[in-house]
């Protein structure tokens, strides 16, 4: 417990400062966009209506989707600007998060501002003209000051939304307090989840109170209060800006990880080996599955581990199923020629999609293979991870075996195992390297028709670092050295409910157990 908390505290300066900087930038940008829009919309219903409608529409897009949508958009822009100006804008991390959160921040400011300005007493507006104010003077001296309290209330709402939603920036590669939540959820570390939530809530409350102080200062005509509030807010942002400068230093190589334990462990393993060669490393964890490859191809990651079957179907969009060696060779050639990505080599274990059942139930129903399952499927309930039913593997399984289940539901992986054990579902999509298969006494169903491709774990290097001597020297010794038993055990160290280890500790254990030579 204490170890978990102290590990959470160690990364707090990094997570918190990045969260603060992202939120502050999004709010500042949102305000900078909203105010001119507000002024344009104040007189003209023709501007007002579409602006408000658009802002409301954006608000209805789920936060995570908005973040995800900006990524391909920026990727397109990035390659365009790369071709036109030789300058690639980063498509991963800060920029897509900033744009999405900025859009999110606009509505409360705009709606409150417009409501406030439209509801100003006409007698006061007439008086403002009557005493000889120009349109601009009337705006600055009368309309905005009178709308200020409500505008501030809008800004407060907006700040609370943005700080909360910024936790969703983690899967697109922007470090935030969301890293606690995503990682914690993945490895069932509730201390981390609660810690992340708690810090995000505290940050939102503190920001809200300081903005409230500014609002009070404006409303009560006590400028000192407003200045104190503003100064404290700016101090917070400046402090956040100062943290990464000393904590992070050079960025160096960027090692990526998708959002599950095995990926955290392998990233930690690669990280420690590169670091041991004397080079700085940054980890970008909790990347969405497709983001990781795109980010690598765009040189925003230097290296990460992916799986042959995933690359085959999701990146190359292939539906045929060549034998293992042929698939590996084809992948090596195609990834290199199409994306410039180098496939360094397989690690030695496979993390395939498998279908798994409770051992007792499988035995009772006499189900050993997916063929057996297909006959009884209409009476059984299927659970998959969040992406499983959208993946080509599922479509191939369905088509090849004619699978038709009584019901299907998607779960976050941790909850999927729990659903199976508690009997809410009968079959799940599991991963062959998952330590929980052995620990939970699950039966893995055979795939006699080879509907699911092989999923050998492979190290990929970005186009920029394809021939990088440091990466090659540090990572090559891992090739072929990690057997499935060791990977399962390492995964279970992180996933098990009691006596948990951090991914870094599991990586250290794995390196020792696999007798890996120290990196030179």
């Amino acid at each position, binding site marked *: 417990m204490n170890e978990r908390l102290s590990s959470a505290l160690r990364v707090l300066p990094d997570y918190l400062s990045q969260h603060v900087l992202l939120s502050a930038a999004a709010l500042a940008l949102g305000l900078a966009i909203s105010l001119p829009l507000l002024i344009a919309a104040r007189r003209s219903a023709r501007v007002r209506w579409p602006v408000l409608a658009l802002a409301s529409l954006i608000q209805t897009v789920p936060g995570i989707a908005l973040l995800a949508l900006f990524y391909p958009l920026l990727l397109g822009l990035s390659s365009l600007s790369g071709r036109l100006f030789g300058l690639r804008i980063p498509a991963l991390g800060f920029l897509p998060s900033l744009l999405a959160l900025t859009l999110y921040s606009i509505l409360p400011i705009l709606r409150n501002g417009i409501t406030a300005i439209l509801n100003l007493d006409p*007698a006061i507006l007439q*008086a403002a*003209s009557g005493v000889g104010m120009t349109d601009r003077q009337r705006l600055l*001296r*009368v309309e905005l000051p009178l709308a200020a309290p409500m505008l501030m209330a809008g800004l407060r709402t907006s700040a609370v939304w943005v700080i909360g939603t910024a936790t969703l920036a983690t899967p697109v590669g922007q470090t935030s307090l969301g890293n606690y939540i995503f990682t914690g959820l993945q490895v069932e570390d509730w201390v981390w989840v609660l810690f992340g939530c708690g810090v995000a809530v505290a940050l939102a409350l503190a920001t809200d109170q300081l903005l409230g102080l500014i609002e009070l200062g404006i409303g009560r005509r006590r400028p000192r209060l407003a200045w104190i509030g503003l100064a404290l807010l700016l101090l917070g942002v400046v402090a956040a800006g100062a943290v990464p400068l000393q904590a992070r230093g050079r960025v160096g190589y960027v090692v990526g990880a998708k959002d599950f334990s095995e990926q955290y462990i392998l990233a930690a393993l690669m990280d420690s080996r590169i670091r041991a060669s004397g080079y700085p490393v940054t980890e970008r964890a909790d990347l969405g599955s497709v983001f990781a490859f795109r980010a690598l191809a765009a040189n925003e990651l230097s290296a990460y581990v992916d799986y042959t079957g995933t690359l085959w179907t999701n990146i190359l969009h292939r539906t045929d199923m060549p034998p293992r060696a042929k698939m590996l060779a084809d992948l090596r050639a195609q990834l290199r020629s199409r994306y410039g990505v180098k496939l360094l080599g397989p690690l030695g274990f496979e993390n395939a999609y498998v279908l798994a059942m409770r051992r007792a139930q499988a035995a009772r129903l006499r189900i050993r293979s997916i063929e057996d399952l297909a006959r009884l499927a209409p009476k059984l309930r299927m659970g998959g991870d969040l992406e499983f039913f959208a993946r080509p593997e599922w479509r191939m399984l369905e088509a090849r075996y004619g699978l038709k289940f009584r019901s299907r539901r998607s779960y976050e992986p941790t909850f999927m195992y729990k659903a199976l054990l508690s009997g809410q579902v009968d079959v799940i999509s599991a991963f062959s390297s998952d330590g929980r298969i052995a620990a939970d006494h699950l039966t893995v169903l055979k795939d006699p028709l080879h509907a699911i491709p092989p999923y050998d774990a492979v190290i990929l290097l970005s186009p920029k670092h394809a021939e990088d001597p440091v990466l090659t020297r540090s990572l090559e010794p891992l090739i072929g050295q990690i057997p499935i038993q060791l990977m399962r055990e390492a995964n279970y160290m992180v996933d098990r409910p009691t006596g948990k280890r951090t991914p870094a500790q599991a990586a250290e254990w794995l390196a020792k157990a696999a007798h890996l030579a120290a990196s030179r």
Partner: protein
Amino acid sequence: MIVLDNVSKTFDGGASHAVRRVSLQVPARAFVAIVGDSGSGKTTLLKTINRLIEPEEGEVIIDEERVHTVAPHALRRRIGYVFQGIGLFPHMSIAENIGITPRLIGWPEAQIRARVEELLDMVALPRTYLSRLPAELSGGQRQRVGIARALAARPGIMLMDEPFGALDPITRDALGQEYRRLHDGMRLTTLMVTHDILEAVLLADRIVVMRAGAIVADGVPHDLLAGHPDPEVRTLMDMPRRQAERVRALLEERARE
């Protein structure tokens, strides 16, 4: 001298006119009351003078200057404007409200302060009110501030639109009388819109009666009270006289007892 020359204004593209071809000359230092039912066009007419409303036809000339050639804000800084809603700025103190036009013009701060204090004395409000907010004042006090604000930049002309309409009768009478004294003392030209004919008779030197966007009567109160060919004007002007006669009768009755 204010000259309105054939001024017309429509709010519905010409289907009907709020003001139709009105001509009026107001010599300097006159106190003119414009009376009429609601919808008769009296407020619209008043607002064409400081360009709060732009007429479609005709023009307004002040001291031989055509007002549509002057920037609206510059024009309005030279003309005091008081209306029933008062429209004090709720986020500004009494001192800031009164000093607003001089500040817009760019008077030095010391001069603004002196002027604000002078005006507060003139409208009979204590100096302690300077730092208060409008919400802390009574209706009558607020209208005093409204008048002080209109007078701040030493305008020659005052436009007043139902200035005392929302006040209780006693305050209304007192403030009316006080304003008349200010008008005389400061040699102002005042146009006051009111629907209260008694107020017009008691304060103004001249009464203009409007109906359906046109002037139907124009004269000194004494002449209009004496009689007018238009029957509606006669009914209108009869009212203050009949009220006065009734009051006198009551007083005489009491005296006889």
